[in-house]
């Protein structure tokens, strides 16, 4: 455990090195957030409630979605990709520490730094420039915390599984893009799937992606009643179990067939 904490600490220090990255990211994310807020405001002109959600909740949704996206930044897929491609995976695997445990610790470290560098400034800017994102029902807070932790893990596991494909394909850049677009468009991070046609949203709620963004956000804005939320959290948990099983299976298989390029 101490080893992992040390990696987390190193990663936090590493993330603090480049100051400009922080400002650059905040500026870009602010622009995206404000554009999205205006986007929804324009769509809602002349309508007060669409699919049970009003414009105020939608703006809260956007602010919290921007903040949540900070927690869902993973580097594991690129990390595996580059270490397989460059062959440094061999030395990585020699270290007296679990390879994927190390990657997870690195990602957690960067996220801890990002919470202070990105997430809090974005929440502050959003509250000042758009509206104060008040949670619909504070009693749902325990549910929110659990669902955010699970959504972080689901997101990380999907990233790790896509990353592992590098062991067979050597170059996984394109696969990383596939994953990125699947999550970006199907998770409700930009447009919640309740605006999609019924049949499409039914299919999507069977997939793991909506449980990354949309579930915690729905809990936050109080969309749907509690029984519905608990039902969705069960599906989220089932996906977490399925993906963990897949992950451990793939991990045991994949480390056996490492091929190092260039020797």
């Amino acid at each position, binding site marked *: 455990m101490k080893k992992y904490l040390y990696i987390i600490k190193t990663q936090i220090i590493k993330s603090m090195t480049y100051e400009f990255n922080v400002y650059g990211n905040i500026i870009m994310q602010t622009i995206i957030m404000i554009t999205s807020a205006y986007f929804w405001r324009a769509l809602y002109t002349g309508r007060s409630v669409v699919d049970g959600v009003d414009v105020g909740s939608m703006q809260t949704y956007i602010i919290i979605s921007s903040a949540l996206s900070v927690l869902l930044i993973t580097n594991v897929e690129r990390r595996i990709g580059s270490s397989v491609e460059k062959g440094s995976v061999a030395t990585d695997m020699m270290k007296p520490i679990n390879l994927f445990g190390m990657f997870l610790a690195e990602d957690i470290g960067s996220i801890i730094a990002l919470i202070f560098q990105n997430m809090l400034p974005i929440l502050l800017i959003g509250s000042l420039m758009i509206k104060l994102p008040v949670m619909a029902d504070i009693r749902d807070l325990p549910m929110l915390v659990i669902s955010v932790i699970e959504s972080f893990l689901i997101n990380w596991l999907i990233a790790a599984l896509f990353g592992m494909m590098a062991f067979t394909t050597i170059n996984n850049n394109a696969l990383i893009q596939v994953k990125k677009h699947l999550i970006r468009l199907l998770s409700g991070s930009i447009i919640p799937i309740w605006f*999609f046609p019924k049949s499409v949203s039914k299919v999507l709620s069977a997939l793991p992606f909506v449980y990354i963004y949309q579930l915690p956000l729905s809990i936050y804005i109080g969309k749907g009643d509690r029984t519905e939320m608990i039902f969705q959290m069960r599906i989220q948990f089932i996906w977490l179990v399925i993906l963990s099983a897949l992950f451990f299976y793939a991990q045991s298989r994949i480390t056996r067939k490492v091929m190092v390029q260039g020797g």
Partner: protein
Amino acid sequence: MRKSFDTLLHYLDVTGQEIKMAFMTMIEYPSNIAGWFISNPLQFIMGFAIIKFVVESFGEINGWNYGQLAFLYGLSVISHALSMIFFVQGWFMGWFVIEGDFDRYLTRPLGVLYQFFFTNINIFGITDLIPGVIVFIYGCAKSGVTVSFLFIVQVIIMLIGATFIRGGIYIFLGSTSFHTRSAVDFGQYTQEIMDKTTMYPMSMYPESMQFILTYLIPIGWVSFYPVSSLLGIDNGLSGGMTTAFITLAVGLLVMFLAGAFFNSGLKKYESAGN
């Protein structure tokens, strides 16, 4: 005169070789080709489906109907694809700066910016182009424009302008790395902002934002103004060739300014210490 003609021929010759090499690198990893052919069309098919769903839930967006939005989306994706082919490297300029990769280009007798973009020409951008063209043709049919010779010429000129605007913005953002000595992955953010501002009618945003997007960061010229003019949507612009040439002029101006900013940054470049 003859000398500059020779230089041009030389550049064309080198470009041919670069493209040949880019093809060879492309087939190095077969799974990668498959990946790009899935990921990029997937992105735009889903993106387009989302626009359809939004229109179904909310009706017309700021007076733009579904056919007009498809037209806008198609044109926007085509210029995105072209900018991906020629200028995507701008997204990664920061890493070239901090890893000292410009050394290679500085020692060679061709233009640095030319080498930077064409050594790494991204043939995979074609996978963006195909869905773009499909959606655009669909949009033409749905919005009921008459496709004449003049129309095609206008579209081509506008696309060149739009590609230059996008490319110029990538160069501009990438060149900030010379001054900040750090690499920021602006790619994803840039794309997200571009998606929001070029794939939906810009008139849905407040006046102040429209002003910025017209005069300061001329993203409005990438798709909104050209498409409004082509479809005859009233926004104070005259139809015909005028808008096409304004788009091209804006593109050239952005490219010129970005190039100047790049060159001023390159003077500050001092490789990676080792």
